[in-house]
């Protein structure tokens, strides 16, 4: 039971932290709960499908199908998070102002919601498929008593969700005018961390064979499989033994997102009366 609890907790935590950040980043947006719930449910359904076809997926591409699949899921999530941040850079200030006037932010919240619902779905898909495979295997082997497994699974989900909820509530304690800067910053680091994970999978699958040397080893200081290491791994992409390619891609992703955000922000700040008039009339 304890083993089940620990494994389920780890996977739920990874997906849960991402959902927590997404919920904080969409504070005050109507219907966000529906979007995020839809993303999570779709992710769960996808996780079952992926688990059912795990060996078929794994056998693709000369046995590197699992790595390629994981890398693609991660890259897609990075794209969606980038999209959210760029969009927030041009609309964020207005949203913060609008939030004081109830109801006026309905339309403006729509686009990042889709991107973020997809991010939640992908996170649940990836971690969920591992949970499903694990639980199914335990169930099929009859090694652990079924009630014990179910109890361990439920406790694992609750514990993972609980820690994620702490992060969410902690973020909500930040005043609204500062909150979106914080969540945009968190999402930038989250995206960079996911991009670095994607690189690790591509290296593992044999698709990227340059820059494989390890840049540093901080496993003596903060091992990645400790709770703090895992939290930081999910939140900011901490790796105790990163490869050079991971580091390069991490820094590149941060630079790319910040550049896109700043170019968008300065464009939004430039007055464009003609355009404003057309949009207001249409």
């Amino acid at each position: 039971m304890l083993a089940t609890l620990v494994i389920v907790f780890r996977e739920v935590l990874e997906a849960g932290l991402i959902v927590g950040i997404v919920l904080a980043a969409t504070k005050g947006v109507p219907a966000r709960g529906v979007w995020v719930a839809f993303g999570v449910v779709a992710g769960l359904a996808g996780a079952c499908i992926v688990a059912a076809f795990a060996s078929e997926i794994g056998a693709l591409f000369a046995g590197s199908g699992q790595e390629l699949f994981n890398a693609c899921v991660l890259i897609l999530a990075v794209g969606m998070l980038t999209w959210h941040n760029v969009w927030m850079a041009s609309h964020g200030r207005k949203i913060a102002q609008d939030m004081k006037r109830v109801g006026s932010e309905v339309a403006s919240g729509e686009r990042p919601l889709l991107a973020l619902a997809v991010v939640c779905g992908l996170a649940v898909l990836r971690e969920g498929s591992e949970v499903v495979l694990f639980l199914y295997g335990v169930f099929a082997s009859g090694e652990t008593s079924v009630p014990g497994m179910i109890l361990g699974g439920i406790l694992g989900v609750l514990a993972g969700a609980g820690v994620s909820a702490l992060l969410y509530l902690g973020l909500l304690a930040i005043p609204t005018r500062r909150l979106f800067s914080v969540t945009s910053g968190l999402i930038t680091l989250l995206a960079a961390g996911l991009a670095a994970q994607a690189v690790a999978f591509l290296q593992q699958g044999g698709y990227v064979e340059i820059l494989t040397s390890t840049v540093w080893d901080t496993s003596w200081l903060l091992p990645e499989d400790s709770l703090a290491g895992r939290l930081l791994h999910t939140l900011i992409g901490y790796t105790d033994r990163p490869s050079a390619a991971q580091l390069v891609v991490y820094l590149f992703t941060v630079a790319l997102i910040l550049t896109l955000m700043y170019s968008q922000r300065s464009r939004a700040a430039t007055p464009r009366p003609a355009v404003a008039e057309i949009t207001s009339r249409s």
Partner: protein
Amino acid sequence: MGIRHPLPLIAFAACLAFPAVARAEPAIDVTIKDHRFTPAEIHVPAGKPVTLNVKNEDETAEEFESHDLKIEKVIAGGTSGTVRLRPLDPGKYPFIGEYHEDTAKGVIVAE
């Protein structure tokens, strides 16, 4: 709604189009049975890529994981998985089965 931001899709398509790497490299068979790896000590030539064919004979899933080698690979019960090892410097690289850490332990020795 239309696709406003094609970048993720392009990246995704590029991923799928990526050619699978076919290499003639030595393959070593590893078996998981009763949550133990056989052989638990795997000797590989240093400086050469090696493929491990990991066969999971248990009904439970296992995750072949090595922090040193940055490998995480889930292998469902009763199936096999391919683990590619990059060219390694001489040394010892421990690995575990993450779902059964107590018993599923092994080490890759590059020499």
